């Protein structure tokens, strides 16, 4: 940074200077600059070059003008290395757009116009007036607009730009400029800008050009502000409509910003910083556009508005909640819990729309499509960023739809380890989508990752899907669906889903996990961890009717049921007992409901049959000691089985999971006996003592299961539904 100090534009004095001058009139600007130069940097080649460039007059010969060329090169080098001060920016912009240095140089200057700190808005306003003159080529106009879009966040304040909204809007009819103008308008639009004649104009253009995404985005904002004016139906989840950022500028910009950050921060005294936010995201996330917010409704009067960043406490927020002005950079909302609270209770649609737009763009451009800077630096940055989104989503208790569509794209290129925990967390937050989309967007990519990964990844996938199901169910129980209801909290996010659609999605999810678990358990040799995660999932599934009033009962597939039943550890069997007990409770309730009124969704007959089959198998296995016998569903060919009396090897006494308890019990009962005869436990009162002993060990699930299904003492009572 040492060599920066001799650049007047970047030294701290230069900044203060420029800030004073940016507020003053335009006419004396160049004078002051010149004076400044004379005072400070006679010998500084950069300053001399700027000086020279500011004096370039109309009609200067451009071709073969070595002096001009030399000075441009000097400025270009400095600009690309350190960025340009606000004054230099406005000077060069003026030079370029006035075409004093010729059309070719206009393009060239625009290309190296990298701001070191901020861009004065007067310069932009002046440039718009040059745009109105109409001398520039289309190329140059487009380039200029793209430049403005790229540096938009750096424009010091936007009130004057908003006041020339009409001028900017008039360019919308230019076919080549339209996408860029729409984007700019999108960023500038306030409620008072939405007028019937503008809407009409846009509709005309739309009729001419078709449903272009950029027009739709702009119309969506219009619709948010004045829904009565825009009758057009806007699709709920638009793909991001603007692709106007320029990556070379971006790259140069972020490089320069990274370099200058420390100094810039010190000089601009940005008062509120995002805590815990990595600093190189600062450009996009710096909290504020502190200087003067334009008041939204009346530019003349001094309406008292409160900026979010001025608020310090929740009480202040409550006192000012009616006249809060949102920051121009919506991304900054994510950083502050007050802002999120505001967002949550006000449900400002335009804020959501803009936040989503910004977020979608940030995720897409900065993360999804730019692995170039693949260092651990940018990774930790991304992980902090994603965690931030995650905590905001948890706070608001809903997902942003931009994150959602980012996730769908990301899943298809995911290697399964990059930012694994954040991605899976975010994934568990996705809102309900229809079952066909769910299959294509989420399940297809996941299934490939799942089956080529190790057991721990498999577990985390199941866990993620479990928490997804949990969230859906909770959501549904809080906002019960009737036949057709608006699922969205914001109307810009309208997904209408009927109860049957919801049930379809849930069924799809459950059967998907069933498939994953069945095959996964087989491939992993019934890994105990995977088995328990799967049972976790089914603990959620078995209680959907009782806990969440969702009339769905889905039984676990045999590939999950039998490994759990024949598992070698007692806890797994116990959990299976609990799950079967809950299934029974749920199905009983379903039956009762069905008898009461006809209209509810029916649980299908086959579900009852499946349940009965599993119940019988389980009771036969654990209680009656006759599993796998001929005639039952899980029959074993007698000729194949070489084990004598194989049917008795999985009852509660001989089951490998409970073997240890049986031995212990045996020793307690007959301490003097030398040889262990477990069969004697099954005789008479010893059996009920053994059961009591077993349930004292904490097998509550099993206890419930046995009590409900066998009536305790009887040995034959498998009562089916």
């Amino acid at each position, binding site marked *: 940074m040492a060599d920066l100090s001799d650049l007047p534009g970047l030294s701290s004095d230069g900044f203060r200077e420029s800030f004073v001058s940016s507020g003053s009139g335009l006419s004396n600007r160049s004078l002051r600059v010149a004076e400044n130069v004379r005072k400070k940097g006679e010998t500084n080649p950069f300053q001399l070059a700027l000086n020279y460039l500011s004096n370039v007059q109309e009609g200067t010969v451009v071709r073969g003008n070595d002096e001009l060329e030399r000075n441009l090169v000097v400025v270009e080098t400095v600009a690309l290395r350190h960025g340009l001060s606000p004054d230099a920016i406005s000077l060069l912009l003026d030079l370029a757009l006035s075409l004093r240095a010729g059309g070719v140089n206009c393009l060239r200057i625009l290309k190296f116009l990298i701001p070191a700190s901020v861009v004065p808005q007067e310069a932009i306003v002046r440039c718009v007036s040059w745009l109105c003159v109409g001398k520039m080529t289309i190329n140059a106009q487009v380039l200029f607009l793209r430049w403005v879009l790229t540096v938009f966040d750096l424009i010091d304040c936007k009130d004057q730009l908003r006041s020339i909204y009409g001028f900017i809007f008039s360019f919308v009819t230019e076919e080549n400029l339209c996408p860029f103008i729409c984007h700019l308008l999108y960023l500038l639009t306030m409620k008072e800008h939405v007028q019937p004649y503008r809407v009409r104009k846009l509709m005309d253009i739309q009729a001419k050009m078709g449903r272009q995404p950029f027009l739709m985005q702009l119309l969506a904002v219009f619709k948010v502000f004045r829904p009565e004016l825009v009758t057009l139906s806007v699709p709920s989840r638009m793909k991001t409509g603007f*692709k106007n950022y320029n990556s070379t500028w971006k790259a140069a910009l972020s490089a320069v910003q990274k370099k200058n950050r420390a100094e810039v921060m010190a000089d601009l005294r940005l008062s509120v910083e995002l805590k815990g936010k990595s600093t190189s995201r600062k450009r996009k996330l710096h909290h504020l556009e502190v200087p003067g917010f334009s008041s939204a409704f009346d530019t003349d009067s001094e309406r008292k508005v409160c900026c979010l960043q001025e608020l310090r406490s929740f009480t202040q927020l409550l006192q000012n909640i009616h006249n809060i002005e949102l920051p121009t950079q919506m991304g900054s909302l994510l950083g502050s819990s007050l802002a999120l609270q505001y967002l949550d209770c006000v449900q400002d649609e335009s804020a959501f729309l803009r936040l989503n737009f910004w977020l979608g763009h940030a995720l897409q451009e900065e993360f999804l*499509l730019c*692995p170039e800077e693949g260092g651990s630096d940018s*990774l930790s940055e991304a992980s902090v960023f994603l965690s931030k989104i995650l905590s905001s989503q948890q706070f608001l208790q809903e997902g942003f739809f931009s994150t959602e569509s980012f996730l*769908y794209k990301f899943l298809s*290129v995911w*290697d399964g380890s990059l930012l694994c925990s954040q991605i899976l967390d975010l994934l568990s937050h996705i809102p309900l989508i229809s079952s066909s989309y769910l299959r294509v967007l989420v399940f297809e990519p996941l299934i*490939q990752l799942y089956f080529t990964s190790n057991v721990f990844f498999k577990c985390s996938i199941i866990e993620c899907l479990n928490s997804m199901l949990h969230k859906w169910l909770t959501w549904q129980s809080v906002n019960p669906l009737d036949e057709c209801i608006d699922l969205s909290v914001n109307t810009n996010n309208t997904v209408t889903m009927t109860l049957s659609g919801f049930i379809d999605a849930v069924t799809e999810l459950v059967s998907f996990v069933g498939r994953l678990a069945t095959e996964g358990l087989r*491939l992993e040799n019934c890994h105990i961890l995977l088995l328990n995660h799967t049972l976790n999932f089914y603990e959620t599934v078995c209680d959907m009717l009782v806990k969440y009033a969702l009339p769905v009962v889905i039984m676990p597939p045999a590939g999950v049921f039998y490994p759990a039943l024949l598992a070698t550890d007692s806890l797994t069997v116990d959990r299976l007992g609990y799950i079967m007990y809950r299934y029974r409770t749920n199905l009983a309730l379903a039956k009762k409901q069905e008898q009461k009124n006809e209209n509810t969704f029916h649980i299908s007959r086959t579900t009852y049959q499946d349940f009965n089959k599993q119940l019988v198998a389980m009771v036969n296995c654990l209680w009656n000691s006759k599993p796998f016998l001929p005639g039952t569903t899980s029959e074993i060919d007698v000729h194949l089985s070489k084990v004598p009396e194989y049917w008795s090897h999985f009852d509660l006494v001989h089951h490998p999971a409970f073997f240890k308890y049986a031995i212990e019990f045996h020793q307690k009962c007959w301490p003097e006996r030398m040889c262990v005869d477990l069969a004697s436990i099954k005789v008479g009162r010893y059996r009920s003592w053994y059961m009591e002993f077993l349930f004292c060990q904490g097998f509550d699930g099993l206890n419930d299961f046995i009590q409900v299904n066998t009536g305790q003492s009887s040995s034959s009572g498998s009562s089916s539904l």
Partner: protein
Amino acid sequence: MALLAPYSKIPEPNTATVLVSSQLRCVCVVLTPKHLFIATVNYQLAKFSGPSFRLVENEEKFQSKLADAIVKREKDVNVNVRLACRLPLPVENGETRPRVDLVVFIVNLLFERSLQVVENSLNHLSSDYFLGKVCFMVTDARCGALAQERLLSVKKLAASHRCPVICAEHQTEDGISMAASRLLTILKVSAGQSPLATTALYLSTLTRCTVPFELYED
């Protein structure tokens, strides 16, 4: 032009071979003698035969890193990594080459050529390979819109051959080791080393790519 066939040779006990190639720089660096044997381990029962495992890929660095990662990861079986830049393999050392259990095509999405080479190489594989013994690995998938388009065509190619597509982050250590472990999972099954009764064909029905449905194009 010899077709590479999986069952033309008898598998060697307890070995595996990985072949990694670099098609962008030079065509001739085929079959570097990179038999990376792990000195195993007598307790391993002789019932295991070794999977041979080939990567056809274009970046030497990634290749060799991946090869190292694969070999270091696997402790039970001798994994033998070989590098190649393209198929067909040269005839000269065809005799000494071990049986190849899995062919991995590495496609760098930044280069159009990478995909073309893979497309051409596919013709030199015996159809038996497509019963679960081929897989695609793509790198640089998060690299701009062009890469996304190419990814789509890779997926279409893979779907038409019933092969899985694995995305790899080749710039980070974690990414490489994750890619290695995924390949090993497939390799073990396709070499018959998995302790469970699973065949390569069966696994490929679970993992194979399906043509993606484009909801959000951009």
